[in-house]
């Protein structure tokens, strides 16, 4: 564990490559069975280039990355995520690799903000999120 300074970036790190099996598992654990996340023909009928990942899968991976980043800093003991705002900017497709990273911002002693981006293998931002941490 290290001390948190706001020059410390949260390094971009791969969260995995999107597969149909992963999307089906996320549908099962989240209850979101929208067929555009599983069925190529439905996705195309909706004007999409193909099956797209659930936005909430990427959003959840970002929450996991946020918690993982918090654990790296001893000064964040006792903090928890009290608010998150996620914006879905572009679609994630089968075979895309999701990487997540960002930076810290201080608000005050008891409130800290973490801003994260999810990018695909072409460094296109697919989702942006900010997290308020408080204790």
């Amino acid at each position, binding site marked *: 564990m290290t001390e948190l300074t706001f020059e410390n970036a949260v390094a971009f790190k791969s*969260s*995995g490559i999107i597969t149909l099996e*992963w999307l089906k*598992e*996320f549908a099962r*654990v*989240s*209850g*979101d*069975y*929208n*067929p*555009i996340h599983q069925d190529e023909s*439905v*996705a195309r*009928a*909706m*004007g999409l280039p193909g099956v797209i990942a*659930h*936005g*909430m*899968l990427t*959003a*959840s*991976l970002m*929450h*996991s990355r946020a*918690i*993982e980043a*918090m*654990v790296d800093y001893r000064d964040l*003991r*006792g*903090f*928890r*995520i*009290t*608010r*998150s*705002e*996620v*914006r*879905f900017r572009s679609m994630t497709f089968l075979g895309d690799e999701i990487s997540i990273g960002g930076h810290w911002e201080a608000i005050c002693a008891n409130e800290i903000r973490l801003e994260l981006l999810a990018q695909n293998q072409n460094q296109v931002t697919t989702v942006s999120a900010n997290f308020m941490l408080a204790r």
Partner: protein
Amino acid sequence: MKAFKESIGTTSTPRVFKLEPSTFKEFADCVHATVGNTSFAPLSSVAVPTIFTRFREGEFELLERMGIALPQVLHAEQTYEMLEILHPAEEVSFKTSLASVFEKKGKGSNMAFLVFETEFIRTLDSQTIARAKSTMVYREGVS
């Protein structure tokens, strides 16, 4: 599109849930949340906040009532406010309302942004533990 605005203020059927520890773990495993396995005590018992995404039935019910099929919408934004920690086996009730609707002109079609708000209340003490706000985009002409 006009008909959607008439649905502002409608509310879903109230629902109740209780999540078992195994459900927390399944969700955490799927979204690569490994913190539960660390010794970082204050966090080790915290569910991944997006586990609340399991409780979008209220949204789906309201979409259906508006005559919108799930494939016709895309997720635009999601906000969670976590007021209290959600613990396994706690009974929580929730209902969803359509809070607002606004329109934008897209590249090829008009789009309606449907904003749903959900409040999660712990049964034991009637305390609000979380609030969720989802913005879904409906694209006109996609059916």
